[in-house]
């Protein structure tokens, strides 16, 4: 919390005020922990530099800390300003996780449910694994979200944080529905339990548990829509933390 705890050339009192400010900010920011830690470390460096500059201009240390914190804005305003980027990062990380782990779950079901070799073709495959359309929609949604939140935004319309988060929720919900459906269909089919069923069902159960947790986080984030659409340039500069 509070980024990398090094604020050289200031007294313990000033250090504590910077720590308190960054601590408040840390509590208010959503999103991936590692990303938040990097932001806090970056802001600490900026605050340190601002304090040093103000002291060079002849202010006392207390005044320098006041000015630096005032210029940075209230923790709430700074957290709100970063929320869009953090939510987008959360969506991209989550989707990347599903893309990376998808084949690890899917391969077991494909081996378990693949149609007989003499029944080739798309219809046979869909009959054997009816969740494939769900997976296809999830892949298209994931690819679209990645494209409109990453390097392609120079050429494609950029997805807003709300839209990126909504798409992420859709991908997770589709994966969850796919896992539940395929397990239910397999169990209800009455087919003899094969050894391959153990890793397939196990992998899906692990992903179901992860999906439930992620859905809860993502839905809570999306509910707080006002923070995802902060006033442009709003900083809430004030005299907090004096």
């Amino acid at each position, binding site marked *: 919390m509070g980024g990398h705890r090094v604020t050289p050339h200031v007294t313990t009192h000033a250090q504590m005020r910077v720590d308190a400010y960054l601590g408040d900010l840390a509590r208010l920011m959503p999103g991936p922990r590692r990303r938040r830690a990097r932001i806090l470390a970056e802001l600490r460096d900026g605050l340190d530099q601002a304090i040093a500059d103000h002291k060079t201009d002849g202010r006392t240390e207390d005044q320098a800390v006041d000015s630096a914190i005032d210029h940075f804005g209230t923790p709430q305003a700074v957290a709100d300003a970063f929320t869009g980027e953090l939510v987008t990062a959360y969506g991209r990380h989550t989707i990347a996780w599903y893309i990376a782990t998808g084949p690890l779950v899917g391969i077991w079901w494909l081996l378990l449910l693949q149609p007989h070799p003499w029944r080739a073709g798309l219809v046979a495959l869909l009959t054997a694994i009816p969740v494939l359309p769900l997976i296809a929609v999830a892949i298209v949604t994931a690819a679209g979200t990645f494209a409109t939140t990453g390097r392609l935004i*120079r050429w494609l319309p950029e997805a807003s944080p709300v839209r990126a988060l909504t798409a992420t929720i859709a991908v997770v919900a589709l994966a969850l529905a796919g896992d539940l459906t395929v397990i239910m269909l397999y169990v209800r089919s009455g087919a003899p339990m094969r050894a391959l069923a153990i890793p397939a069902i196990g992998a899906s159960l692990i992903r179901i548990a992860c999906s439930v947790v992620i859905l809860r986080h993502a839905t809570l984030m999306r509910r707080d829509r006002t923070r995802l659409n902060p006033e442009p340039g709003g900083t809430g500069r004030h005299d907090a933390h004096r």
Partner: protein
Amino acid sequence: MLPMRPELLKGHLDALLLAVLETGPQHGYAVIEALRTSSDGALDLPTGTVYPALHRLERAGLIASDWETVGGRRRRAYHLTASGHAALGEQRVIWDQFSTAVTAVLGRRPWAATV
């Protein structure tokens, strides 16, 4: 010069940040200071505007960052990528066209009405 409201910069902030970084790598606070000093104080942008905008530019691949340790502090320095240089060139052309058009409209003053 009076500070400008950040919302007035909507659509041009990316180009301004890319232009500041064109001269070489800079950390976030230095970018804010460079904007302020090079505009005679008119572009005194707050943290909540500049840092997230830098992160967005990095996500778009127009800038990249490296962490270094300076005087015992961890510091993140941003620099332009090849795509960033290209985008800055495009933004300059767009700005030239935009400013010419706006000046042409705003610069026209009606003759004083005669009574």
